[in-house]
């Protein structure tokens, strides 16, 4: 689905990632870990083309990033659901409008997908908060709304950048459960987190591969888990 072939990324002459090789197979679950500032977010951004590799090639669904233009990037992001730690909502739109935003952007009529939206809201436990504005939501509600928005177009891949960074343990587990459910539905999931307890919890429920960034390079995590 997404493949990074010997990818390096530099900014301002400083190498942030070096020779990263990663393949996200369909239906796989990956954790990406490492200390703050190690390059987790940079790697994720390379995976949805917010950044372009300085060296090497990122291949999306069989197509090299170098062949994907601006409109191609937009099309790509409809196949990749993204959840950020800060959620990034349009604060003047309600929860349901924010979740439906990708449908609107993709030119899909929202009116005919009301039931689907209702089911999605129920799945993330936000049925009663559908008319609320994002600033009125709690941290956990915001993350679940962001997840709902990320999956509304039924993407092939879900990328989550520190999705539990601002949540308490109970809310973190709830979000993790949703991500695992998505993976069981066949979605490819990549979660960047520094929360090792969460990763251990997940590994008891799903066959997740854990990767770690150390010294700008990606490697399989092992003994500490």
């Amino acid at each position, binding site marked *: 689905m997404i493949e990074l072939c010997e990818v390096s990324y530099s900014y301002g002459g400083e190498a942030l990632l070096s020779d990263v090789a990663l393949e996200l197979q369909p239906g796989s679950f990956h954790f990406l870990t490492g200390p703050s500032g190690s390059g987790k977010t940079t790697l994720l951004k390379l995976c949805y083309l*917010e*950044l372009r590799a300085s060296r090497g090639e990122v291949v999306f*669904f*069989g*197509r090299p990033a170098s062949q*994907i*233009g*601006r*409109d*191609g990037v*937009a*099309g*790509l*992001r*409809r*196949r990749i659901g*993204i959840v*950020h730690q800060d959620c*990034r*909502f*349009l604060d*003047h*739109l309600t929860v349901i*409008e924010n979740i439906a*935003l*990708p449908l*609107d*952007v*993709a030119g899909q009529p*929202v009116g005919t997908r009301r039931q689907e939206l209702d089911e999605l809201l129920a799945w993330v436990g936000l049925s009663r908060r559908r008319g609320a504005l994002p600033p009125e939501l709690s941290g956990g509600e915001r993350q679940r709304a962001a997840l709902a*928005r990320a999956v509304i*177009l039924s993407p092939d891949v879900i990328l989550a950048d520190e999705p539990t960074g601002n949540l308490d343990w109970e809310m973190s587990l709830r979000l993790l459960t949703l991500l695992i459910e998505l993976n069981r539905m066949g979605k490819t999931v990549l979660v960047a987190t520094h929360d090792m307890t969460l990763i251990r919890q997940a590994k008891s429920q799903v066959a997740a591969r854990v990767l770690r960034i150390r010294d700008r390079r990606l490697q399989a995590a092992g003994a500490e888990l």
Partner: protein
Amino acid sequence: MRAPARDTAGRRGGAPLSAFMRWLGRAASLLAGDARADRVVPPAGFTAWLTVFTAGAMSFLAVFALAFSLAAGRLADSWSAELAGTATLRISAPPEQVAQQTAAALAILDGTPGIAAARALGAEEQRALLEPWFGPDLPVDSLPIPQLIEIVETPRGYDAQGLRLRLQAEVPGAVLDDHTRWRRPLVRAAEWLRVLGATSALLIAAAMAAMITLAARAALAANAQVIDVLRLVGARDVYIARAFVRRFTMRSLAGAAAGTVAGMLVLALLPEPGAAGGFLTGLGLAGTGWLVPLAIPPLAALVAFWATRGAAMRALRETT
């Protein structure tokens, strides 16, 4: 694998006509509007009012620039038409010879090919001509005022040089003035005034485009976070630009309509040109000229459309 839309669109292109039709379709869908697309960008009070005000003020000025240009055109035409077919013969002679020389001149003029009519002006007519300069109590009879003969040419005209030579020989006090000497500069000046009016209208349009571009860029900068979110969920540049372009186009249309109506009202309330009406009192629009300013609002909307689209697409390309 899904084919990116841009590629298929690119292969479809080629013929300028089909590209134009595609653009026309996009413009039509843009003006038709998309309530949801409009909603994604929060309404911004400052740029909204700036755009409406700019479009209104510029359109108000454009009405006057147009009226000025049209009035200058009318003036040039009228000067050209009124003066082109006439000439004046002035007879300056001792009082006892004036009648005799006038009669001789009229006889010559009567037999000159290209002259349709020649008529000596009466004392009252000459007094009326001088009245604007010397007042109503001018004692014409006691002053050595030359006798004027009004000449009306046929469409083919006459040989001015030949007539001058004949008059010089037979009517020594006669001076022929075919108006060429001062008609040409006047017509040229009126033509320049017309060009000046049209140039002013173009400058107003350019200034409006510049102001709207600035307002659009300010709106785009203020909504950088919104644009970031839209990109994240897969919005194409055209989708993002559309929300801004439609908003600015409609605001400009509304502002320009108000400004144009206000300008036309002011023109309609200008005093009617009197008998001695000069250029300024004749500045208003006349006849079908009243239809011309009606083109200002759609033109302003078009200017706003291109200015905002250009600004939006440039700004979006500068981002990731």
